[in-house]
């Protein structure tokens, strides 16, 4: 394979460029910043899930010695939201609070204790309103409205789409099955609590250092809310101590830190407590799902109808996108010829939900994969047979107009089935032990930006120094996934230099070209492509100068090992730095920019903005479990996972993303849940919000499948989110294989397992899960024609090679 030509790409070289800083404590996260004359900010939060604010009196707080400023909603009246539609949030609540923990006032003081004491002196008079705490309550209480801007009741968004002819598809089926599922909400639980430091200087310049995944969007939101020209605002994303989607929205503490700094003229820091992180949330939406599928006797799907009822919490956040995502990717994994999707997102009086790893797709993936397992059993097929006939094909279109390029799902499936000896184990292990299987697909970056524009999604500028060092400027933010390392390795590969000679300036809206942020698994794909474009421009100029000097054609030159070589005469070479100096003499100061914009992939129907991606990753997983019938405890013994990564740019980084995804999936399937009692979060602490430790984490066998995507950098696709998806249903299916109990509700806690075993012992239907779905009349679906041809001709992967 030509991939062997690479020096750094695909090699198990030390994983990261930021490793040394992170293992020595040198890396500075947002809360590690202590500028001179720092003030400490704190937020006062609502104790009510739903209440009118009658008055707020801040006089006593403002009079407390050491307090420098106090603000309320009236000081930040302009609304915001991450999505341009539904700008329904305020930095501090105005008139009404909609969840326990919603910020209503903020103070800045000389130290944290004084700030905390000041919060107790703020008097807020509330008129409590009845809280709406579930999907069912939201629909049953249309007159108890959380917002008034939405059209009816507590319904935030309704979607109804149909592709092909679903009724005809069901008519063709030999067998039809319906199931309902519930996926409880959970949260990101990053180890780093959100923190931000703002400094407004007397020249009117504002700088915000923040633990954010999306500095560009925070920049835009600050300008809008503070009504200040964006050119005066600089947002610097500090290294993020874990995000997983939870630091992708603009947050109250960011606006408040800036406002408090504007009022005091001093830097202000706000670091959330762990309890407050649970209220900031934006985590996994609870989703109630109904699915109906028609199949032929051999398992081939003839039609699918999917409904999702989504609990959005108190605000819209990314919710419109989430709603579409619960219906978009079913067809990217399996060829579904006729498909209807109906989705509904409601408001409830809980912290707002948002994007968590897999954003809106793990819930339907769980439902679909367990549903298929049931259909297989009904038809007497095994879990591989039911999936094999309709696996997505490379270079094809889905029925809902999503363009698939590279796809090695069949190889992924084969690999995990073989390595886990799935077919030898399935239905054959002793009672209490079982194996389960599932497949999935995920996007390598959203095809469209969050706000409509035609500009690039990612930009990279490179600057060459006479020493031979290169400085990379890019807006991408490293949240631990290794995007800084990918940038450094890519530039070093293209210029043939040591990655240690690459310096990085990233995630600074005042200095770096825009990258839209670390979400939708987009950074390696988009910033990687931009870096390649920029580096090749520079290389061309270096080669032109060296070719002129040696009097040979530039096409005979190569850059490697810190030198420029003549391929026709390997004895002829010069150090990289000398080539830089010759090029600088010829062309002047050397810099170059590259950018990446996804190809036009959307626009054929309303709602098609969510789902398109320049490339999809594919994953298959097998989980093996041991269920203790006495305690109900599920031990995951091993996970086999095969991921179509396109090309693994750094195997350590890719494996790290996959292992982390498996871990996070196991937390979601077995224990993690964000739940409430009488409007109050049941356990906003790390001790009681159960997450897996070293002792619950099984061994993982990771198999990387390289399909070399034509659009990806060196053929690469994403690894950060997709591998989470199949693990949750694989475990649920394995639990069924082990004890014959269907857990159609996530998480699968010991309590539910024991209840299921009890039902089974009594000879009743051994299933736990929702009984049905609320009666809701979806509007008639928007009918979209099937794409003319499923096969799309794209350039062969090899033509993209350097």
């Amino acid at each position, binding site marked *: 394979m030509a991939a062997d030509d690479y020096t750094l790409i695909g090699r198990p070289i*030390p*994983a*990261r460029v*930021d*490793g*040394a*800083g*992170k*293992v*020595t*404590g*040198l*890396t*500075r*996260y947002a*809360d*590690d910043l*202590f500028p001179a004359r720092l003030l400490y900010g704190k937020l006062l939060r609502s104790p009510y899930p739903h209440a009118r604010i009658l008055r707020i009196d801040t006089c006593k707080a403002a009079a407390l010695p050491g307090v420098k400023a106090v603000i309320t909603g009236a000081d930040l009246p302009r609304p915001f939201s991450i999505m341009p539609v539904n700008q329904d949030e305020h930095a501090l609540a105005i008139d009404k609070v909609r969840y326990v923990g919603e910020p209503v006032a903020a103070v800045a003081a000389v130290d944290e204790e004084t700030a905390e004491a000041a919060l107790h002196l703020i008097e807020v008079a509330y008129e409590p309103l009845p809280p709406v705490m579930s999907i069912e309550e939201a629909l049953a209480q249309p007159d108890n409205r959380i917002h008034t801007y939405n059209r009816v009741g507590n319904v935030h968004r309704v979607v109804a789409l149909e592709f092909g002819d679903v009724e005809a598809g069901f008519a063709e089926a030999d067998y039809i099955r319906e199931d309902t599922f519930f996926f409880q909400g959970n949260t*990101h*639980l*990053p*180890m*780093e*609590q959100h923190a931000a430091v703002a400094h407004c200087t007397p020249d009117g310049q504002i700088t915000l250092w923040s633990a954010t995944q999306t500095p560009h969007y925070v920049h835009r939101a600050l300008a809008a809310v503070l009504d200040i020209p964006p050119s005066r605002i600089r947002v610097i994303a500090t*290294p*993020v*101590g*874990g*995000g*997983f989607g939870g630091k992708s929205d603009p947050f109250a503490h960011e606006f408040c830190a800036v406002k408090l700094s504007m009022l005091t003229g001093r830097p202000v820091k706000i670091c959330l*407590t*762990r309890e407050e992180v649970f209220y900031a949330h934006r985590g996994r939406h609870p989703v109630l799902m109904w699915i109906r599928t028609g199949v032929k006797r051999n398992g081939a799907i003839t039609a699918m109808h999917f409904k999702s009822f989504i609990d959005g919490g108190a605000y819209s956040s990314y919710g419109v996108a989430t709603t579409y995502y619960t219906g978009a990717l079913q067809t990217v994994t399996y060829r579904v010829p006729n498909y209807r999707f109906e989705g509904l997102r409601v408001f409830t009086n809980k912290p707002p939900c948002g994007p968590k790893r897999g954003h809106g797709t793990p819930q339907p993936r769980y439902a679909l994969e367990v549903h298929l397992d049931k259909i297989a059993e009904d038809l007497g097929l095994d879990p591989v047979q039911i999936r094999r006939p309709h696996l997505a094909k490379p270079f094809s279109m889905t029925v809902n107009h999503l363009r698939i390029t590279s796809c090695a799902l069949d190889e992924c499936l084969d690999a995990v089935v073989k390595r886990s000896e799935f077919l030898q184990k399935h239905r054959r292990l002793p009672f209490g032990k079982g194996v389960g299987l599932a497949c999935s697909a995920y996007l390598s970056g959203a095809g469209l930006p969050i706000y409509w524009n035609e500009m690039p999604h990612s930009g990279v500028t490179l600057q060459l120094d006479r020493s031979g060092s290169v400085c990379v400027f890019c807006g991408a933010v490293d*949240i*631990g*996934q*290794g995007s800084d390392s990918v940038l450094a390795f890519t530039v070093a590969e293209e210029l043939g230099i040591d990655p240690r000679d690459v310096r990085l300036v990233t995630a600074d809206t005042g200095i770096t070209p825009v990258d839209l942020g670390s979400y939708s698994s987009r950074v390696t794909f988009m910033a990687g492509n931009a870096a390649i474009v920029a580096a090749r421009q520079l290389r061309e100029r270096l080669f032109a100068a060296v070719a002129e000097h040696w009097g040979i054609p530039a096409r005979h030159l190569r850059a490697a090992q810190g030198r420029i070589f003549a391929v026709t005469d390997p004895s002829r070479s010069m150090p990289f730095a000398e080539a830089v100096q010759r090029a600088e003499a010829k062309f002047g100061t050397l810099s170059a920019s590259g950018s990446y914009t996804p190809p036009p992939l959307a626009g054929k129907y309303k709602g098609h903005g969510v789902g398109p991606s320049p490339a999809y990753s594919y994953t298959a997983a097998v989980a093996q479990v041991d269920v203790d019938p006495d305690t109900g405890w599920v031990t995951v013994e091993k996970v086999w996972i095969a991921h179509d990564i396109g090309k693994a740019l750094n195997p*350590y*980084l890719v*494996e*790290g993303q996959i*292992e*982390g*995804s*498996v*871990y*996070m999936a196991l937390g979601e399937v077995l224990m993690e849940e964000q739940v409430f009692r009488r409007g109050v979060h049941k356990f906003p*602490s*790390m*001790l009681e919000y159960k*997450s897996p*430790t*070293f*002792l619950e*984490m099984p*061994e*993982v066998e990771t198999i990387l499948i390289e399909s070399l995507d034509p659009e990806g950098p060196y053929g690469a696709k994403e690894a950060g989110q997709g591998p989470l998806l199949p693990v949750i249903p694989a475990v649920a299916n394995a639990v069924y294989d082990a004890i014959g109990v269907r857990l159609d509700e996530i998480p699968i806690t010991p309590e539910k397992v024991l209840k299921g075993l009890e039902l089974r012992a009594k000879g009743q239907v051994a299933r736990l899960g929702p009984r049905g779905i609320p009666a809701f009349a979806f509007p008639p679906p928007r009918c979209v024609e099937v794409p003319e041809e499923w096969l799309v001709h794209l350039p062969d992967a090899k033509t993209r090679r350097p």
Partner: protein
Amino acid sequence: MKTVVRLRVNGDEVEVWVPVHKTLLEVLREDLQLTGTKHGCELGECGTCTVLLDGQPVLSCLVLPIEVQGQEIVTIEGVAAGSELHALQAAFAELGAAQCGYCTPGMILTALALLRTNPAPTRQEVKEALAGNLCRCTGYLKILDAVARAAASLKDGSSYGG
């Protein structure tokens, strides 16, 4: 009420004038600028703020400085020998055992205490020793690999370098 506290941190004698109820975590970070010690909950639940006290891992968010005067405190800043990384640090960096890196100082210090008392731990022993430290990024597996690699390289006689 403030008081003078004398501490021995990473081999240095230091004196700070702090409120009596200020935690060791806060004093390290805010008064001694040792921000390598992180916080994840400040309630003793996550292990992120782990430091070594006379060689034993402790949660600095639950320790009052006045209790530990005269004892040897080691933070992540005290692990490397000058600019040379300890074998654990080198292994964590090379294998990608630090992703976001936020839990890493606590992980390394807990692992360091383990390797000093048990230079060749089994994988299960490492899991048990580190079970009080949460990590949300790695799935723990690269951390286990890194501790194993460090243990092997320490056995070969070099505590520093990887």
